[in-house]
């Protein structure tokens, strides 16, 4: 399997009036094509900083990130994002359809192609016929589905998600987790997710990158050897699930 993303010796420092804050120190790992990788760690460890580097929103002070062997210097073309705060990441002045269409217009797709992709991606997330609705007319879970549909419509090879299910209720959360797994299966998208929910990380991932320390280093990369397809009922009762979550939890809390 080919390497989709490689993070090579990435360090990140912020200059503040009080001095230099060293957030990430020599972080390295590789993400295989089509894998689902979660990044976990204690709050404030620098997960979001790492995500900003992965999306090209910021550049590391040392080291580099490569997408398919090419060093990134801005947001890669075939990358899509789903952020925690759907109310802030969708445009309230545009309908669902137009929200999804915006990145497609930017890719200079024809009107017919845009239309086709919007219909297809809304169907994929179970929001058929929601084209003319406005985001604020939808529930939180549905708005996050719109974000996912927008991401899928660009046919990305890499999907980056920042706490994507942190702002929805528990039931919706399970539904969206399974939706994301289905999407990954349907399109083979390499998926990176930052989360503080260790159960969720174990449930969804092929691998979990555990960050720890100040500045943060990669504490461990845990392979989740639970076979796909996974199910909310069975996987979460699996003996191996319990072992892995305990192991990851221990590392995140610095107990191991």
């Amino acid at each position: 399997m080919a390497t989709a993303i490689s993070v090579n010796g990435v360090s990140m420092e912020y200059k503040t009036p009080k001095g230099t804050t060293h957030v990430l120190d020599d972080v390295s790992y590789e993400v295989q094509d089509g894998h689902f990788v979660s990044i976990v760690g204690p709050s404030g460890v620098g997960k979001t900083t790492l995500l900003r580097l992965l999306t090209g929103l910021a550049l590391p002070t040392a080291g580099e990130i490569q997408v398919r062997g090419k060093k990134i210097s801005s947001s890669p073309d075939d990358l899509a994002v789903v952020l925690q705060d759907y109310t802030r990441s969708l445009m309230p002045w545009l309908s669902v359809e137009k929200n999804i269409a915006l990145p497609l217009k930017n890719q200079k797709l024809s009107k017919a192609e845009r239309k086709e992709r919007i219909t297809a991606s809304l169907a994929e997330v179970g929001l058929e016929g929601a084209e003319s609705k406005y985001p604020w007319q939808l529930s939180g879970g549905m708005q996050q589905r719109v974000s996912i549909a927008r991401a899928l419509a660009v046919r990305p090879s890499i999907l980056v998600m920042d706490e994507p299910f942190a702002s929805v209720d528990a039931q919706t959360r399970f539904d969206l987790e399974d939706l994301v797994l289905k999407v990954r299966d349907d399109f083979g998208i390499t998926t990176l997710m930052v989360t503080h929910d260790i159960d969720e990380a174990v449930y969804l991932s092929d691998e979990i990158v555990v960050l720890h320390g100040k500045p943060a280093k990669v504490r461990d990369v845990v392979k989740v050897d639970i076979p796909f397809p996974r199910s909310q009922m069975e996987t979460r009762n699996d003996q191996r699930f319990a072992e892995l979550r305990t192991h990851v939890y221990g590392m995140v809390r610095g107990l191991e």
Partner: protein
Amino acid sequence: MSGKPLRIPAGLVSAVVALLIWQIATTWGPLAGSSVPTATSTLAELWNMLFMSETWDSIWQTIQMALYGFLIAVVIAIPVGILIGLSRFAFISTKFTFDFFKVIPPIVIIPITILVFGPTLQMGVFLVVFAIVFALAIQTAYGVRDADPVLIETMRCYGMGRAKQVLYARLPAASPFIAIGIRISVSAAMIVAVVAGLVGGAPGLGHDLLLTETNGQNSATFAIVLILGILGLAVSRLVVFLQRRLIFWTAS
């Protein structure tokens, strides 16, 4: 909303009560026999004036001053506000100067404008522009800066550049701020257009106020005040109506 059908009758009731108090105060009350005309004589004068073409000319001149001034101010202030809002340095450095001009009452520059323009429509237009352009530019700049960084970063992730961020995110995000600026500006434009006539001698209702007052035509003076009130009310209603239509997403 259950209160909605009541709104117009409720407004009418208070208007009738106000007219009654006015009538009583000027007939039997403390203002009886003073230079304040009665409500009935004012309304009668207003009725007469509605059939005189001079009245409509004056109304149109006042509206023209307010409207042209307002449009010029919008055309200047919104692009300038956007540019200022896009740069932190420009925002901080111009804010001081703009705030300074914002608080200067336009009335104090009337003597200068009379020297430059004379008591003309142009003078009124200039005063209106001066009165609102700075506040509107600052308001626009604030709005542009208020665009959610999460939204801007989302757009950047999808490869959308600065121009698209402005067009699709910063401008719509700024529009509620601009709308507030416009609501305030429209009222200010009307007031200044009248003051330009009243103090500066520019044509229109303000100038008519000055003339009728010096001629002792008190009923006419008050009738003009009524016209101004109705005009102001109509304009602000129109702006609110348009705002609700155009910036629908903030309503809920």
